[in-house]
């Protein structure tokens, strides 16, 4: 009985101490970035590069854009928001939760169709999806994910959306859609080029005229104690120093931005 009590008391100080991760020092604050899930491949090298240049470390919180926006709205201690679309960032700007002058498009996503290696589908164009040898097709939730909306748009413009309905599987996000295709649960998935750029498999770029550009915007969150550092990172991410990395991972740079 008494031993139990002592054990409990020991755990209290443990509870009070704060978490791990890169230690923030007074001189070198850690910038916290909330980033859309599809940036999981391109961000780490970019952030490492940034840290080497400036000495500023950064941490990333990945998630789906809507969720990340909700978190920021409720006061999550995020410094920089990298969304998978524009509208969520613009919404936050309208609510005064991000610094409007930092809002700009940092990349344009490219929509691709992907099937895993050895699937032998031999897709040459989107119309091939109508063929009976293609089974299930995964797309990210079109109501929530910009890539999903783009996929739907493309299929609609080709008049294929209705016909393919019974074969379409809705995934939570493009990563999950990709996962379905990787595991063979679906035959083919609409996903972001950046996610499959280094992966084997059959790949077909969806012609950009078929969908509205997927503009991914960023902004510095208002009230962040690390605003200066966040601004520097934002500049870096849209500036020339990062151009090569973006391209390497399958993103287009924004020709014009809101800078």
């Amino acid at each position, binding site marked *: 009985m008494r031993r139990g009590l002592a054990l409990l008391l020991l755990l209290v100080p443990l509870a009070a101490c704060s978490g791990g991760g890169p230690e923030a020092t007074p001189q070198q604050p850690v910038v916290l970035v909330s980033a859309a899930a599809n940036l*999981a491949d391109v961000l780490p090298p970019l952030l490492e590069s940034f840290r080497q240049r400036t000495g500023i470390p950064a941490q990333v*919180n990945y998630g789906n854009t809507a969720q990340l926006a909700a978190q920021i709205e409720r006061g*999550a201690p995020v410094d920089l928001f990298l969304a998978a679309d524009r509208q969520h960032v613009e919404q936050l700007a309208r609510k005064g939760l991000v610094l409007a002058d930092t809002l700009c498009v940092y990349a344009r996503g490219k929509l691709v169709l992907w099937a895993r290696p050895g699937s032998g589908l031999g897709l040459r164009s989107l119309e091939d999806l109508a063929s009976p040898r293609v089974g299930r097709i995964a797309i990210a939730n079109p109501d929530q994910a910009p890539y999903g909306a783009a996929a739907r748009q493309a299929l609609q413009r080709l008049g294929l959306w209705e016909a393919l309905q019974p074969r379409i599987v809705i995934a939570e996000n493009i990563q999950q859609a990709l996962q379905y295709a990787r595991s063979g649960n679906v035959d083919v998935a609409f996903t972001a080029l950046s996610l499959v750029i280094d992966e084997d498999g059959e790949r077909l770029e969806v012609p950009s005229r078929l969908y509205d550009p997927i503009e991914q915007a960023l902004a510095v969150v208002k009230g962040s104690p690390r605003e200066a550092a966040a601004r520097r990172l934002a500049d870096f991410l849209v500036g020339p120093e990062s151009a090569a990395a973006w391209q390497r991972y399958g993103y287009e740079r924004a020709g014009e931005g809101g800078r």
Partner: protein
Amino acid sequence: MLAALLVSLKVVGVATLVIAVFGTLLALLLARGRFPGRTLLELLLTLPLVLPPTVVGFFLLYLLGRGSPLREWLGLDLLFTWQGAAVAASLVGLPLMLQSARAAIAAVDPELEDAARTLGRSEPEVLLRVTLPLAHRGILAGLFLGTARALGEFGATLMVAGNIPGRTRTLPMVVYDAALSGDLATAAQVSLLLSGIAFLALAITRRLEQPSRR
């Protein structure tokens, strides 16, 4: 992965404490207390068990985020911290603990407690020397169940604490991330670890639920 293990340990450690203390107190209240609104309280406390984790997460986001009284009055900013994750984990583990503990306490014959009173023991003594010892198996079983659940908590934690490697990324999140990015080896490893722990917890719970032969 080691970082995630540490985060999970911290989160579960605190969650276990919270569940143990609050779970026992609330179970006592629900099992023995008579007050208006008792049923309502019981229902509210059981909700996290049946609600989808994202709903719980949203609720917590509002509870812990900007504009919430908790934040303003107590100055507690728990968003995106492992302590916030611990809160989420406690919340989903608590109902499981309550079910078991409450039943165990209610099963203690009130006549035994009355006997203790007539023998001159004060209410706290009755609690500590009769009620809790006789209910301890059910309480412990509930605690193990609740802790196992807390360990596996994912959806609500994601909302409240985010998925920040080294800071709030827990083991279940590692599985999720690894599976999505095609790193099946890591996903399998961690899944195995989590399953093993859960299995152990359930086995212990089962042992505790067997009536002992005294």
